[in-house]
């Protein structure tokens, strides 16, 4: 066999191994990423599957048992605030968690009880690394900048 053939075959083997590695990992660990309304409309098809969901924390629904470390709250999507889900999370309430923040949940959804059991809870806090929005009287920003600072 010619040397260049040998290298081509070795290259192909390595390449296919890597593709197979990525493919199997992907099959095993990819999850749907849904908003609250999507979760409610498709919820029954994803029972028992790992999911990622994003939503906003509804005011007045936060219930945190700081002794047992159980956090319950309702989440909704900004555009369709009538659709809500109940969320329960066992763990420490993150520092930046409060009503109105956007959260990313990972866990499983039970459509019967409309309950999302979150294994992880990440707070997406808009002002986390950027400065706060200045008070309204000082604010004369270009419209694009005013959207999210």
């Amino acid at each position, binding site marked *: 066999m010619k040397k260049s053939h040998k290298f081509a075959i070795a290259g192909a083997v390595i390449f296919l191994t*890597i593709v197979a590695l990525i493919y199997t990992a992907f099959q095993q660990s990819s999850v*749907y990423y849904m908003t609250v309304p999507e979760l409610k409309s498709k919820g029954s098809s994803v029972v028992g599957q790992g999911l990622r969901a994003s939503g906003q924390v509804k005011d007045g629904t936060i219930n945190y048992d*700081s002794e047992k470390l159980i956090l319950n709250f309702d989440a909704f999507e900004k555009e369709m605030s009538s659709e809500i889900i109940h969320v329960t999370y066992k763990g420490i309430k993150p520092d930046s968690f409060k009503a109105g923040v956007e959260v990313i949940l990972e866990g499983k959804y039970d459509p019967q009880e409309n309950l999302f059991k979150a294994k992880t809870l990440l707070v997406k806090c808009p002002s*986390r690394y*950027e400065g706060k929005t200045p008070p309204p009287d000082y604010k004369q920003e270009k419209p694009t*900048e005013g959207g*999210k600072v």
Partner: protein
Amino acid sequence: MIDIGRFALAISFFVSLYVVFASLFGVLKNDLRFVTSARRGIYAVFFLSCISVAVLINAFLTDNFQVRYVSHYSEITLPTHYKITGLWAGQEGSLLFWIWGLAIAMAMVAFQNRKERDHRFLPYAYAILMVIYAFFAILASFITNPFELFPANQVPPDGNGLNPMLQTYGMVFHPPALLWGYVGFSIPFAFAMAALITKELDPLWIKKTRRWTVLSWVLLSVGNILGSEWAYAELGWGGYWAWDPVENASFIPWLTASAYLHSVMIQERRGMLKVWNIFLIVATFALTIFGTFLVRSGVLQSVHDFGVSEMGPYFLTFMFVTIAAATYMVYYRWNELKSDNQLESFLSRESTFLLNNVILLALAFATLWGTMFPLISEMVTGEKITVGPPFFNQVNIPLFLVLLIILGICPLIGWRKATAENLRKNFILPGVLAIAAAIALISSGMRDVYAILFFVFSVFVTVTIYMEFHRGVRARKKLAGEGVLKALGSLLWKNKRRYGGYLIHSGIIMIFVGITGSSAFNVEETQTLGVGEGMKIRDYTLRYEKIYFHRESNYDAATAVLTVLKDGKKQGIIEPEKRRYDKYAEEPTSEVALERSLKEDLFVILASIHEDDRVTIRAKINPLINWYWIGGIVAFFGGLYVLLPEYKRKEEAEA
């Protein structure tokens, strides 16, 4: 005063256009006067950008809140060093900081090559760099200008303050290292393109930019490691890397840059892989732009939420133009890019380098794929599908394992073709010691397969590195009749590139050891405690003594005092803290308390405070984690060592 900064920035944009024109005109008409003038233009750009930066820093230091940017990221009571870091706290400033870095680098390149008259690629490189500069200067001058002012009658009395998460030493070094690491890759990129344009494709462009490549790589590495240290010690979730899109955005160019760093050596020595090297440097440069785009465009869900801006499309366009131009140039010069040599054997150093490149690229691709998949799937199917850390771990851990073993094998194999004798002689010692380590680990009860493999391979590689030093010293002792220490000294001094490289590799092994230990064997406990009560975590006991409340310059704090006992013996006191910054009263932050040792870290967070001064404490033990930071420091110094001036001699060093 502020206007001076604004004008300096705008003028630098026009000067950069002049430099593009003058250097191109000079090289096309063979008129050196224009090239000289272009070089002076580069100095002028450097000078102007320094003025802009100085003006902005001064605005921070003098609390000039009429400047929007300053009022966004500073306040009167902010400590001075954090006021200076305000320069890169937000988008407008970090863009200016980026520009400044590019201007400094360009001025240095122009100065280094001021006497160079024979190489036509220099003026082209200047022109390309200045196009890059002009692009960023337009953004900074006209799209997100850091010098924008409030109307004089609406100046706020105080600024909004710097986000508490940014008020930490991580902030002082992490962003500049990362940003300037990004910037640095513009230099080899521009030289590669210039070499293509002028057909001067001998490795001279690589030699001329080698230091820039190493420096940028070192900065990017340091930036990434400091970022993870920051996440670990400041953000308080107990980890240091989460495969978050923003982290990946800086990790992917690091991978391609590492590949480039190795593959150019093959081009220098053997005249091979010319197209591949150009591909790698173009990819690295494009990925730095892409990283900036990912971070700023908000297209991906990330916990690092930088403000979403309208800059995304500009970066994306710039990246595509870059890639298209580079692809065209490679196509255009295809015939000149043929290899001088062929691969001769699987068992050659060339092929280990090649495998190292393939693995690094596979890592880059898998990480990019996982990061971008939510976007791709949404575009194709309308449903968002994401992958989390399990995906990245499942793919990347085996790849890292292969990378680690290549790190050990590579120096054992000679260039071109290794003989069986050579292999047997070199592999026996590291092989035997690695097997011994495996037996020791398994018999001590370790069952985690990946952890065992990582530790065993680390032993293997460490031994091979030791052997390299040993062999070199022995040869010098024999040849030059020097004592051991003197032989070691002159060995290191005369082969900086080689032994600096080994130093970097030792650092990388320590990093692998740190990651393996802390991810495979960490323990975590959370408990609510009353005063005097204790909690157990492995062989530690934490006894909660008291809590006290105090006022600092710009925040209120509550500090819990806990005694650390190990096997019943008092080890020390640990004080996790909760802070409430004046300007961010709604977002309390946690200050992690760390008890660090080479063996492990005790990581303690004050999660919440209840009535009767009861507190919830989260504690974690992270074994071996400090080897991660130590490895980073070792690799950093290894990189600096490589950057020292080379020892001059007639013959090139055996590398």
